[in-house]
């Protein structure tokens, strides 16, 4: 009976690569495989394209949109509850404790050791809400990918790119506001030390494309780093699961392979858990540092 089933599966010739891509890719439906299969895939509504100028936009909600909303909802609820609990606990003249205390410490770490440490003492507190929001949004999005039936919105290049563009705007507009228009233009057309007059101007003009490229590379790296890390992690986990399918038709060995794979996946999952925090930290820290660098440009 089992043998027959295994052979059947083998005959189906499972395409691991396709499974991996299918599970990491965005989709227009949410699937409840295995245990909740009877719920069937939930089909998200499909909206018509919108034409803005020469662009064709389709704002239909996708799986990643849903998980992004879940992440945002969870961030908001956890932070709101934390704030409420802290207020209540302080009103009792008591020290913060439990969940609220842990979250407060976490938020303060992001504020002090990422935002203020990166941006600088004077402007750090001003940018802290943005840095904290982006940190926790990315963190929760990353963690959602590790939850059963979950998906990482941050494993989607469009979403990481959109976040990186927000960082880019924060960096550049923050710089403009701090340095003034003239000072900001200096970051594109730099002052060349040791040169004056026409040669300095020519040199400055020659440097401009490099400077602009330098500005654009930062958010590009942010977007690709986050996307790559999250996607790669899922690829690894799904590929390891693929091993089970590949060797599923073996007589006895399949059990050993199954257990070995499960162990490996558990280890990789732990690594992924760490990476979920690490990448949120890296994104937030680099954004803060770039904002800080821009603020102190002169």
């Amino acid at each position, binding site marked *: 009976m089992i043998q027959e089933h295994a052979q059947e599966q083998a005959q189906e010739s499972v395409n691991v690569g396709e499974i991996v*891509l299918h599970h*990491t*890719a*965005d989709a227009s439906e949410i699937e409840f495989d295995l245990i909740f299969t009877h719920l069937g895939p939930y089909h998200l509504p499909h909206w018509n394209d919108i034409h803005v100028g020469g*662009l*064709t*936009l*389709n*704002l*239909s*909600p*996708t799986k*990643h*949109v849903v998980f*992004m*909303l879940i992440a*945002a909802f969870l*961030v*908001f609820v956890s*932070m*709101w509850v*934390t*704030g*409420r609990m*802290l*207020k209540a606990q*302080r009103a009792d003249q008591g020290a913060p404790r439990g969940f609220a205390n842990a*979250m*407060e410490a976490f*938020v*303060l770490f992001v*504020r002090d050791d990422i935002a203020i440490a990166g941006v600088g003492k004077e402007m750090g*507190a001003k940018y*802290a*809400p*943005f840095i*904290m*929001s*982006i940190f926790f*949004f990315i963190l929760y999005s990353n963690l959602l990918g590790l939850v059963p039936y979950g998906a990482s*919105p941050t*494993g*989607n*290049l*469009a*979403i990481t*790119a*959109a*976040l990186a*563009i*927000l960082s*880019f705007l924060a960096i550049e507009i923050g710089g403009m506001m701090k340095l003034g228009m003239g000072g900001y233009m200096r970051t594109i057309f730099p002052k060349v030390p040791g040169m004056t007059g026409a040669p300095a101007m020519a040199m400055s003009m020659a440097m401009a494309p490099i400077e602009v490229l330098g500005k*654009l590379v930062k*958010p*590009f790296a942010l977007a690709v780093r986050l996307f790559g890390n999250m*996607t790669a992690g899922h690829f690894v986990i799904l590929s390891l699961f693929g091993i089970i399918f590949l060797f599923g038709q073996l007589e006895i060995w399949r059990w050993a392979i199954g257990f070995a794979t499960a162990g490996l996946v558990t280890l990789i999952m732990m690594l992924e858990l760490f990476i979920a925090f690490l990448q949120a930290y890296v994104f937030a820290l680099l954004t803060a540092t770039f904002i800080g660098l821009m603020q102190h440009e002169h």
Partner: protein
Amino acid sequence: MLFSLVMLATSSEEGGLGPFAVNPGLMIWTWLVFITLFLLLRRFAWPAILSATEAREKKIADQLAEAERLNAEAATSLEEHKKLLAGSKEEAQTLIADAKQLADKERDQILSRAREEQEQMLDRAKREIDAERDRALTELRKVAVELSLAAASKLVEQNLDDDSNRKFVADYLDSLGERN
């Protein structure tokens, strides 16, 4: 950046880029969701979580500023006190010097006055002694004359107590005094 990504996205739509496909609609969703989340957190969550810390930080900063101000104040007052102390020391020194000078003068005055008085007293005493001696001498002389006369008149049994005789004896005694 945005434009290039969108261009990439639109060109790659259905282009089989796999995981690298960028759906621009998703970017709009991301901005919508994140900015809403950001505004909500900024309004309802971060202040509640950070208020205590920020208040504490502000308090600490205020206290530090206050401490610095007090420190500066203390430093200036210390400087002032030092100056004052130096001034008063000088003043005391001059006061002591003045007093010493005054005392010296006073002592000298008293000493000289005492010496003067002493001299005066000595003088007076000497004069008194002289006068006393003179008076005693005259007295002695008178008594000696009387005694001599009495003795002589007893001796001579004559009326020798007339004035010429008295004068003769006195002259004699005078000559004796001169001889001595």
